[in-house]
């Protein structure tokens, strides 16, 4: 009998030993203020069990005895990973301290936008601003380090990243991209961003190829109190001052106001002024614990002086900071190419967050003006100081023989007279007629956006998400006279063809008059999506589908002489119906290894700028215009070892049926004219690998490395057609019909101009317990290509316009010598960041500093071939000297720049 008891007691003990439940308790406290933190997520990595800390920072979890890694995280704080061994019945692990994530908070202040963005119709906007919200190591490097060189994640254009504010999409109809300047300077209130990379499922929107970011402006989600920050820099702006006040946390009503000012008389590039201010306000009324009404208003006004891409010849003579668009007037810098964006947004949201049902609805109204200034010249010499005829190369490339003495005179003259001579322009205008004037290309938009999305927990493993978005845009586009520069009137005729721009209006126009062109575009889109998400212990899966219906129409207000029949009135109404689907599978082998597979088939309508051939002139739509099709697959592998975390991704994406419209003057094999080049049936392939690894050497030191290996190429030969007006009676004009099909451009295999296709970074971060930190990254970027001219890769390139027969010298060997794509230079960049914070009398002071490109390396971020030399003979002739007159133009990256920020929070 005692044996039985002993055995059963033993067995009982054994049983308890194997499966003995334990309760783990703890308290999460902030490191500096020593205050308890609520809402901290405590996750047991091995079991994926999790809980949240209560208002006093406490948490409790029941686990089987054993060893676990606790992952403790809270937005704005450094995630802590703690190994615990549970033996006793109740384990009290005491207070756990979480540090403020000053690295990320401060990094949010970094500027990622640069000058190249300001150029028209240029695909040089990168997507780094989208990525600042992410914690992913690779994406952080892409934003803060590679961003200087216009690196694009997976080579995707910014239009493939969906930006939402409170669930409402912000991407523009014009080019599909988000306009970051619409909420620039409001970093404090735009800080709360949820980013999902790539084709992952997002709860409130179908999403897009690159990822989705939703900015939540609710005051209740951010720290209450006041924050004042002041910054100094030599990048795009010189100084910034920002103030934000969030009301103390109340049960019903919370509000936040924020305001900032950014300024510079000159940024890194000469003559680039910066004049911006922003104001933001949001009021949140919590009707109940689950219902919220949110009213937000954003006004970001941004005025900047622009620079231009430079040929190598100009770069060698005048340096990388050179900007041809400005000159002194009355002792002040005057930039002829200013850009001003002022498009305020008002937004009203209703949010419901129940246990099994969430609802996000909203309505936003945006209006305002986007104006781009230019210096026009009419029957007068080109005022651009680096116009090709004023450069030394013009005299060297002269068809009657190189003139070296004149080239030398021109060179010395250019070094003495580098900028626009404004007083000369006023002199030329002294007869009344404007030979020169400053005018704006204006876009005045009014857009209404409506959004509603819902999430339903159908069973405890199945969730349904669905939603609908409706957008309606009315866009007014016109040119407007800004400054007649001392003249009395402007003659509104096209000086190249001597034809009227507005037959029914006065020829003579004055300041603030609309001239040249005036048309409206109405665009609307209705998009619905539905998504199922399945959640199991080791795996998740989702499948989503989306339907969209998009419409575009142009309405011309001016009848011009060049297109008498199709410039005035409405165009045909374009309509695109598109279906998209995506799905994914997420499998966790255990807490340390996770694999994700994603696939998508998407159809997107062409953006407005690629739907009409020449909307300033006529109603013509791109022939056989179609939606583009995207086929994408991606595999992600996530690693989470105690000291080593990382991700490796492989992706392969194909774009088909892409359209592009370009404008330039060309001396082609079949004649010379200003043309609109329409490319259709373009196919592109983006494939590659992304790798990010972080190794925690000690609790203070982290070593990390990132690699992006990509290949972005044209995967077919697209169709090229050129359109031009036939009113110009020139001897070597192109044809009478106004439109020529040039066949296919032989560009299959040519690399896309989407930033460095390969990038590597190695970094070290040190976080000192005394609240200061430093980090450095060494970066290497390569395989970057400029934009190619497609017209020179058509058959017409071989034709001599004088004889209408192929050039005898145009052998394949000679042609490929001229047309082979050459990469831009590879380069190394060293970046440093660091900061320190103090807590004094409940006031929090932090300092952040960053130096980019410590060694002042000279590098190019992108560029484009000029299309002027459209035939073999002319291109060959121009290149003989080594300094062609129509060489490719490049943007140069910034040299050594700094950014310093001091912030007070209380």
């Amino acid at each position, binding site marked *: 009998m005692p044996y039985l008891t002993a055995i059963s007691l033993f067995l009982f003990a054994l049983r308890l030993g194997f499966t003995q439940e334990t309760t783990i308790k703890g308290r999460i406290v902030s490191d500096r203020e020593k205050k308890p933190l609520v809402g901290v997520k405590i996750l047991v990595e091995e079991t994926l069990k999790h809980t949240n800390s209560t208002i006093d920072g406490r948490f409790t979890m029941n686990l089987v005895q054993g060893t676990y890694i606790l992952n403790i995280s809270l937005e704005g704080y450094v995630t802590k990973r703690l190994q615990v061994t549970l033996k006793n019945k109740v384990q009290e692990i005491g207070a756990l301290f979480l540090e403020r994530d000053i690295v990320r908070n401060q990094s949010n202040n970094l500027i990622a936008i640069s000058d190249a963005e300001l150029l028209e119709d240029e695909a040089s906007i990168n997507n780094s601003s989208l990525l600042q919200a992410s914690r992913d190591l690779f994406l952080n490097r892409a934003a803060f380090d590679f961003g200087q060189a216009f690196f694009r994640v997976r080579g995707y254009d910014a239009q493939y990243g969906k930006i939402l504010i409170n669930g409402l999409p912000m991407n523009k109809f014009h080019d599909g991209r988000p306009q970051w300047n619409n909420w620039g300077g409001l970093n404090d209130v735009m800080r709360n961003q949820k980013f999902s990379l790539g084709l992952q499922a997002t709860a409130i929107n179908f999403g897009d190829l690159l990822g989705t970011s939703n900015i939540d402006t609710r005051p209740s989600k951010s720290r209450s109190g*006041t924050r*004042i920050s002041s910054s100094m820099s030599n990048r795009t702006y*010189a*100084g910034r*001052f920002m*103030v934000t*006040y969030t009301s103390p946390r109340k049960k019903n009503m919370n509000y936040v106001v924020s*305001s900032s*000012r*950014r*300024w*510079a*008389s000159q940024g890194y590039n000469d003559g680039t*002024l*910066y*004049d911006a*201010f922003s104001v933001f306000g949001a009021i949140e009324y919590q009707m109940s614990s689950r219902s919220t009404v949110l009213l937000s208003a954003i006004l970001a006004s941004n*005025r900047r002086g622009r620079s231009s891409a430079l040929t190598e010849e100009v770069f060698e003579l005048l340096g990388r900071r050179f900007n041809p668009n400005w000159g002194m*007037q*009355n002792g*002040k*810098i*005057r930039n002829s190419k*200013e850009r001003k964006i002022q498009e305020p947004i008002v937004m009203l949201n209703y949010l419901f967050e129940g246990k099994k049902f969430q609802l996000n609805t909203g309505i936003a109204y945006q209006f305002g003006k986007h104006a781009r200034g230019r210096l026009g010249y009419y*029957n*007068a*010499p080109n005022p651009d*100081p680096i116009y090709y*005829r*004023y450069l030394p190369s013009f*005299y060297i490339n*002269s068809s*009657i*023989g190189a*003139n*070296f*003495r*004149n080239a030398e*005179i*021109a060179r*010395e*003259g*250019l070094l*003495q*007279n580098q900028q626009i*001579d*404004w*007083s*000369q322009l*006023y*002199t*030329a205008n002294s*007869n009344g007629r404007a*030979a020169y004037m400053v005018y704006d290309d204006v876009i005045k938009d009014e857009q209404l956006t409506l959004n509603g999305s819902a999430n339903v927990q159908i069973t405890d493993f199945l969730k349904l998400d669905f939603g609908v978005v409706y957008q309606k845009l009315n866009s007014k586009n016109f040119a407007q006279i*800004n*400054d007649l*520069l*001392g003249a009395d009137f402007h003659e509104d005729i096209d000086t190249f063809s001597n034809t009227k721009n507005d037959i029914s209006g006065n020829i003579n126009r004055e300041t603030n008059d609309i001239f040249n062109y005036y048309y409206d575009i109405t665009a609307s889109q209705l998009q619905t999506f539905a998504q199922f998400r399945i959640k199991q212990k080791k795996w998740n899966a989702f499948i989503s589908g989306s339907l969209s219906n998009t419409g575009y129409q142009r309405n011309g207000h001016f009848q011009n002489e060049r297109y008498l029949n199709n410039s005035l009135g409405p165009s045909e109404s374009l309509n695109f119906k598109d279906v998209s689907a995506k799905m994914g599978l997420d499998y966790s082998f255990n807490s340390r290894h996770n694999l994700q597979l994603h696939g998508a088939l998407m159809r997107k309508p062409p953006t407005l700028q690629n739907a009409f051939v020449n909307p300033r002139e006529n109603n013509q739509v791109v022939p056989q215009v179609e939606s583009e099709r995207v086929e994408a697959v991606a595999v992600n592998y996530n690693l989470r070892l105690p000291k080593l975390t990382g991700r490796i991704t492989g992706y392969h994406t194909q774009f088909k049926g892409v359209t592009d419209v370009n404008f330039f003057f060309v001396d082609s094999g079949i004649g010379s004219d200003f043309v609109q080049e329409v490319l259709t049936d373009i196919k592109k392939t983006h494939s590659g690998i992304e790798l990010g690894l972080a190794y925690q050497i000690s609790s203070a030191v982290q070593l990390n490395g990132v690699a992006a290996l990509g290949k972005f190429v044209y995967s077919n030969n697209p169709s090229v057609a050129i359109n031009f007006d036939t009113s110009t009676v020139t*001897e070597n004009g192109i044809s009478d019909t106004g439109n020529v099909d040039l066949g296919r451009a032989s560009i299959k295999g040519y690399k896309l101009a989407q930033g460095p296709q390969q990038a590597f970074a190695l970094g070290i971060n040190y976080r000192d317990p005394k609240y200061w930190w430093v980090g450095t990254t060494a970066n290497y970027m390569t395989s970057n290509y400029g934009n190619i001219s497609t017209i020179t890769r058509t058959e017409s390139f071989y034709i001599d316009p004088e004889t209408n027969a192929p050039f005898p010298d145009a052998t394949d060997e000679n042609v490929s010598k001229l047309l082979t794509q050459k990469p831009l230079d590879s380069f190394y960049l060293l970046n440093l960041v660091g900061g320190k914070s103090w807590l004094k009398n409940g006031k929090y002071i932090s300092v952040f500093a960053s130096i980019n490109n410590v060694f002042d390396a000279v590098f190019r971020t992108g560029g484009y071939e000029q299309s002027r030399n459209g035939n073999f003979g002319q291109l060959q002739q121009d290149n003989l000297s080594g300094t062609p007159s129509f060489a490719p133009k490049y943007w140069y990256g910034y040299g050594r720049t700094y950014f310093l920020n001091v912030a007070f929070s209380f």
Partner: protein
Amino acid sequence: MKWLSIVLCFSLMFGCVKDRNFEAPESDSCVDLVANTTYLEVKNLFQESTIQIQDDLIIEGFVNSSDEMGNFFSVLHFQDRAENPTEGFQIEIDLRDSHLFYPSGSKIFIKLKGLYLGKSKDVFKLGATFPSFGNLFIGRLPKTVIADHIIVACDNPVSIMPQKTTITALEKRLTNTLISLEDVEIIEKELGLLFAEVREETERTLVDCDGNEIVLLNSGFSDFQVTPLPSGNGTITGVLLRERENFQLVIRDLQDILLLETRCSGID
């Protein structure tokens, strides 16, 4: 207290950036220099071939040509006085629409140091150079240095009085000055033709009632190229050019040519 500090911070939003409104330039880009030499002295510097002027010489003149109608191109012709000039001169420049900056009648100063002086078909020219068969000829001055060499005086433009003369009285000294010829007409066999052939420099012939002829030179790129030649008799004003022994008259615009009277032969 909190509100006060916030308001204070807002009002401290300093950082002024110049707005977009600019007043017209305060000082005109005119300068008043002093000429220190004459055209003849400059022309005497020429030896056998094109030379570069090394001394700080400054000449002044009155522009008498104009490219507004396209009959002149990439050149400025000027004379030493607005009335009764003693000498004329010309400078080749790589500048189109020069009438906007150096209109006919404006007074200019030319800083000669660094410019080249040459002679082509017995006429002196200033400018830069272009090489041909191992020799240096006068070429167009690159645009970037034109404003450094040719400076507009602060005087208002004046009306240049053309010198009244006759075809037989023409002399080399009058080259590059503004003259007017009375009682001339287009020769009969050219009546009905256009001022110039498209894109080609065209010579037409003017004749006085004594049968003396002079070439009227018109550009095929001028605005009045398609206009038919006037058939009457009258006064023509123009810049007198020369190629060796042959004189040519070049008008600035159609106001220079007033042939409304009866022809020498009595026909209108």
